[in-house]
């Protein structure tokens, strides 16, 4: 017995030596590449995808063309393009090239496992006013959701904090990078406000929290909006006092308030403010608030946004619609009530994007959210735009993302079919011009178990 253990120990020592040797070997391999985590962040280079169907989104489809990627950008697109001599060629025959999909409505990287693993959840801060809470500081670049999402063609997401009245600031991130800085497209893309609702529902335990009278609920909502306005006024006053001091140092320097300071670019309409709202009356209240406060407003959720379409259009308030995988609220709503909403927004001329509204794990279904809207009234072209160019426009990044155009960041997906179809496979994936391996936690587990045979050793 002792001898066996000794042998076992010896085996371990041998194994450790073997591992050390192989580690040194692989370190050499990594040193020969670009030195980053090869398997996670891909490799840079000059690439030319030739003979492909190019779905530019911003313009007409090029049935047989070439896309050149260089220094992280798209440097040439067209039917007759000169391929740089140093380019690595990818034969795109039978394949289609799309811009990477963008989901403006996620909490990617802020929650790994929501149930039973609270330590992995960083969605909701304590308190009602957390304007200074920034998603970019809590997004986990190494969340397994990141790779799982991008291998389905989603290259960019907006990740938003949740909870409280002012939840914090969203980040727009590319789904690649070892650090938050690597990922950030906009480290602070929007301020998230959970707009006060008229809520008559007390809670799941009617004894503890009975339903609220409608009038009382309206009053409560109005009080909350007044509180919100007061925060806006305080932030404006704070900004002015700070500015006054900077001009005239003889004045008192107001004590720095991180929360109010964080509000300033948003209350002045320099950056978008996201308001979560679903029902018509709440959306109308948001419109009133946005126009009164002169904000750059975006509705997140937007189940009944189409009912307020004329007002949304008039005031140029965009909608990030996140209710394709949602059941209609009322029994007598049409069965396709929430599938049809994007088409209704489109017809009314409201700027909109389709998002998943998901924490992270299921963001990879974004193409099917858009596709389902396509089955219920939205054109296929607009369905595609609703997850590419439209979210880029709403987030103010359409100069760098959302289409296949020269000069844009090379977030490029090569597929064997319509990117919104569930049977379509992703063949090549570029983010920021880096060619990424199509691997994820899922493919790794798949590879580990796909050929496993039964070992019929009984439990002693």
């Amino acid at each position, binding site marked *: 017995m002792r001898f066996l253990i000794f042998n076992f120990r010896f085996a371990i020592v041998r194994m450790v030596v073997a591992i050390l040797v192989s580690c040194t070997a692989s370190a050499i391999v990594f040193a020969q590449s670009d030195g980053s985590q090869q398997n996670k962040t891909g490799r840079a280079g000059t690439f030319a995808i030739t003979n492909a169907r190019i779905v530019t989104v911003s313009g007409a489809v090029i049935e047989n063309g070439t896309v050149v990627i260089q220094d992280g950008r798209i440097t040439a697109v067209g039917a007759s393009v000169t391929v740089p001599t140093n380019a690595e060629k990818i034969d795109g025959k039978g394949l289609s090239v799309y811009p990477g999909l963008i989901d403006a409505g996620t909490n990617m990287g802020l929650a790994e496992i929501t149930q039973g693993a609270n330590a992995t959840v960083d969605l909701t801060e304590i308190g009602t006013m957390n304007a200074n809470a920034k998603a970019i500081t809590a997004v986990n670049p190494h969340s397994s959701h990141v790779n799982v999402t991008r291998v389905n063609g989603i290259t960019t997401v907006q990740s938003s904090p949740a909870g409280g009245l002012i939840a914090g600031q969203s980040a727009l991130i590319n789904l690649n990078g070892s650090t938050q800085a690597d990922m950030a497209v906009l480290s602070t893309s929007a301020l998230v406000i959970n707009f006060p609702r008229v809520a008559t529902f007390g809670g799941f335990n009617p004894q503890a929290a009975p339903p609220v009278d409608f009038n009382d609920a309206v009053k409560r909502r109005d009080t909350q909006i007044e509180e919100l306005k007061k925060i806006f006024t305080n932030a404006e006053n704070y900004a002015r006092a700070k500015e006054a001091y900077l001009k005239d140092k003889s004045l008192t320097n107001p004590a720095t308030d991180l929360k109010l300071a964080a509000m300033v670019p948003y209350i002045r309409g320099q950056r978008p403010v996201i308001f979560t709202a679903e029902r018509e009356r709440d959306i109308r209240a948001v419109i009133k608030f946005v126009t009164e406060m002169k904000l750059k407003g975006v509705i997140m959720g937007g189940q009944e946004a189409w009912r307020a379409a004329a007002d949304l259009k008039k005031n140029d308030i965009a909608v990030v619609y996140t209710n394709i995988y949602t059941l209609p609220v009322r029994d007598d709503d049409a*069965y396709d009530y929430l599938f049809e909403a994007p088409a209704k927004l489109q017809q009314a001329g409201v700027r909109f994007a389709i998002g998943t509204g998901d924490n992270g794990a299921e963001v990879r279904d974004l193409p099917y959210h858009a596709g389902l809207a396509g089955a219920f009234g939205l054109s296929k072209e607009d369905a595609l735009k609703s997850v590419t160019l439209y979210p880029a426009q709403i987030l103010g990044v359409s100069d760098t993302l959302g289409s296949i155009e020269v000069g844009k960041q090379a977030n490029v997906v090569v597929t064997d079919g319509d990117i919104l179809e569930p049977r379509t496979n992703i063949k090549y994936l570029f983010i920021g011009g880096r060619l990424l391996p199509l691997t994820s936690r899922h493919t790794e587990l798949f590879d580990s178990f*796909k050929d496993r045979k039964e070992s019929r050793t009984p439990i002693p």
Partner: protein
Amino acid sequence: MKAILVLLLLIFSAGSLVAQVRNEVLIKNATVLTAARGTLENTDILIRDGKIARIGKNLTAGGGAKTIDASGKFVTPGIIDAHSHAMMDAINEGTLSVTSMTRIRDVLNPTDIAIYRALAGGVTAANLLHGSANAIGGQNTMVKFKYGKPVEDFVIADAPSGIKFAMGENPKRSSQSAQPGQTLRYPRTRMGTLEVIRDAFVRARDYKQSWDDFRAKKTNVRPRRDLELEPMVEILEGKRLVHAHGYRSDEHLNLLMLADEFGFRVATLQHGLEAYKIAPEIARRGTGVSIFADSWSYKLEAYDSIPYTGYILWKNGVLVSINSDSNERIRRLNLDAAKMMKYGGVPEEDALKMVTLNPAKQMGIDKRTGSIEQGKDADIAIWTAHPFSVYSRVDMTLIEGDVYFDRAMDIQKRSEMLKEREALEKMDINKAPGSGGTPPRIPTEKRFEHQHEAEDVDGDNR
């Protein structure tokens, strides 16, 4: 005499002819995905008395038959959801760890709007399961979604009986914290969960013995009926199907080995998020698995779930179905099946079977439904495009030849319903306070399925 006989025969056949004509439906010129014998182009399906009478080209029906022009459209068997809680007024009896005496059959609500919305996604039948709050839950019921009919018509009378088991986080109640003064319920670990199940089978075996002895007249004392153990005895006798909720491969295997020990076969592992890790062990026992197409990471025991599960199980010869366990997801099971082609590469027909014939087989109702074959119930969905396309929509859903969903009709009725709604909203009692109405101060409570009992805080049973 002969003349009378001929006359009688004539009357009889004329009568039956009339009956046939009244009960005939002819679907014309469809692309038929049979889920059994491949895809048939430009094909007609003749339905007679609720059954598929003929499949072929240029079929004709008797006068007065309803004809559905399906040119350019796709026809599939009605989708079957192997795990649903639709139309259930209660889900979990979670006060005990063994509630085998409870029956889903007793809590069916045939007016649940979820049924209609599922029909609009091409679903015709579902396995309605007890929740997963306890190691041994209640008895399930197989239904067809005959929305608008009395509840008795929903139940598939000749479907084999079944029961829900559950392993892992839900029965051990990891996500439930005890209220002050409340005692904890055994079990709290996976060890305890398995022992609860073992104990129930040991008691069931003894109970069966006491009846066997009584029937063999070894004793004159008639055993007292035990409604908890009766269904457990039926499992031991192979008369009741076990549908076992679980996630981790080790707990699946524990149950399979326990079933070996007691000499029964587990019909399905429900969810089976890690079933891919033990595919050969599952295959060898002939146990089916009903999976989520690709859900993962929503709880700790779902972290190793992969969308390739369906493929790996299929490759190992396991009978796989895809379920929704959700009134939302049930509406798009066709797309979940499509994903099986993407992840690993399950062939088209086998992927379609995962939401049609395979769940029917798992529930023991494949003789009557699950594929488009002559003699089977005419449970059919008609789609505007290939059902695996995200752009497809259900035009019509038929159960036993009767139309239960018709999109054209649905749209036509909308303006009517809108008018009715407006009229109702104008009524004094429905006006909002402050706008001149006098409604009850506290509105009538609307009960949602998750509000019924404290046990339901176990979550949505995923």
